[in-house]
């Protein structure tokens, strides 16, 4: 019997290794897998490359992971926020590397990795600082920049419900990066509010098919 349900958060993140690339879902706090991040902090893997839209808010979640000095590099679109003081301090001290990418390019680079695309030409960023040094091409009269996929070893995402085959549905705008990060990682780990029996999720409305998900863990698990 296939059962992707992991009994504890601790087990769900146990094999995240030093130096791993880890995608973390969420846009601000919506969709941020706080329970999995806390488990990763407790687990202690270091030298991580993190992929997220932001670089942490306040002192919890992703900000706490940064504060624990577990992150070497962050790939994101919008690190600077009113409450991004943890990132700001590390960045100004030269203790974290930043790869800044426009938000839509970030999403498409993640999607491309999950879809087996080796790179793509996008108009976004052409002629700007963020396209410096990148290959460009004129296609049908429009300028494009070559962007590369972002693959990850692990994805930590938050969903509303999941079943033992890894099928997921999300809640409102907390969906944001979850579905594409699940596709782009070798091992996608979903924290869910509720675990349901097979068949309880309407097959017409499953947002992330279980093929993209390796582990499901209840967010209140140990």
């Amino acid at each position, binding site marked *: 019997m296939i059962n992707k349900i992991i009994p504890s958060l601790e087990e769900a993140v146990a094999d995240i290794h030093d130096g791993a690339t880890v995608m973390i879902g969420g*846009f601000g706090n919506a969709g941020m897998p706080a329970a999995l991040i806390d488990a990763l902090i407790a687990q202690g893997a270091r030298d991580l490359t993190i992929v997220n839209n932001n670089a942490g808010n306040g002192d919890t979640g992703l900000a706490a992971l940064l504060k624990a000095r577990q992150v070497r590099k962050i790939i994101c679109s919008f690190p600077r926020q009113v409450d991004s003081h943890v990132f700001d301090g590390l960045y100004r001290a030269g203790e974290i590397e930043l790869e*800044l990418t426009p938000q839509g390019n970030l999403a498409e680079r993640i999607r491309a990795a999950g879809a087996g695309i080796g790179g793509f030409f996008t108009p976004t960023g052409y002629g*700007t600082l963020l396209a410096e040094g990148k290959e460009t091409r004129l296609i049908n009269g429009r300028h494009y920049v070559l962007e590369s996929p972002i693959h990850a070893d692990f994805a930590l995402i938050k969903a509303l419900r999941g079943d033992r085959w890894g099928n997921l549905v999300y809640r409102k*705008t907390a969906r*944001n990066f979850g579905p594409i990060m699940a596709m782009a990682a070798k091992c996608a780990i979903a924290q869910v509010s509720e675990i349901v029996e097979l068949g309880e999720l309407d097959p017409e409305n499953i947002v992330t098919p279980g093929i993209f998900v390796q582990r499901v863990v209840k967010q209140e698990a140990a």
Partner: protein
Amino acid sequence: MKRLSRNEMAARVARDIHEGAYVNLGIGLPTLVANHLPQDREIFLHSENGLLGMGPAPAPGEEDEDLINAGKQPVTLLTGGCYFHHADSFAMMRGGHLDVCVLGAFQVSATGDLANWHTGAPDAIPAVGGAMDLALGAKQVYVMMEHLTKGGESKVVAHCTYPLTGIGCVSRIYTDLAVLDVTPDGLAVREILSDISFEELQQLTGVPLLRAA
């Protein structure tokens, strides 16, 4: 010299958004446009974090942390609205499916170049978010900004001195003094919103202006 207030600017932009339009309103000044959309038109607001059919802010106590806009503020969903993931959301923009984006700006050039993401200050922590995607993200890209900086310099310029967000991407500029169309021949004055003459507007503006056809 009369200058439009921020709300008057928003009302002026709102008047030009047609029935059935799919619209993204950028963070800051453009957000005000939502408060002025004509009640008798059905207009679809898109927020790039993943919703279409965005409604107004919820009543106090009704906020839902899973239902936010691109500015991370609590919002509501209109009946008929929907949610989607980030790659689909930016496909709606990049793929040319939106009708209008309204953006704020530091500077716009006579050829429609946009600078709105970075002041160029060497010690600034860079953050771009969806700015570069939005700049190319709709059939019409409208900019809303004060005509002049606090120091009295024109924000409409021959060439942007701030780092660019996009090249030749702006279709129309709404300022507190005028509405300017970006045309192949240059910037055309579509409407003067102040009590000044064309010549006075020209004097305040950093590039040659064309009289409306």
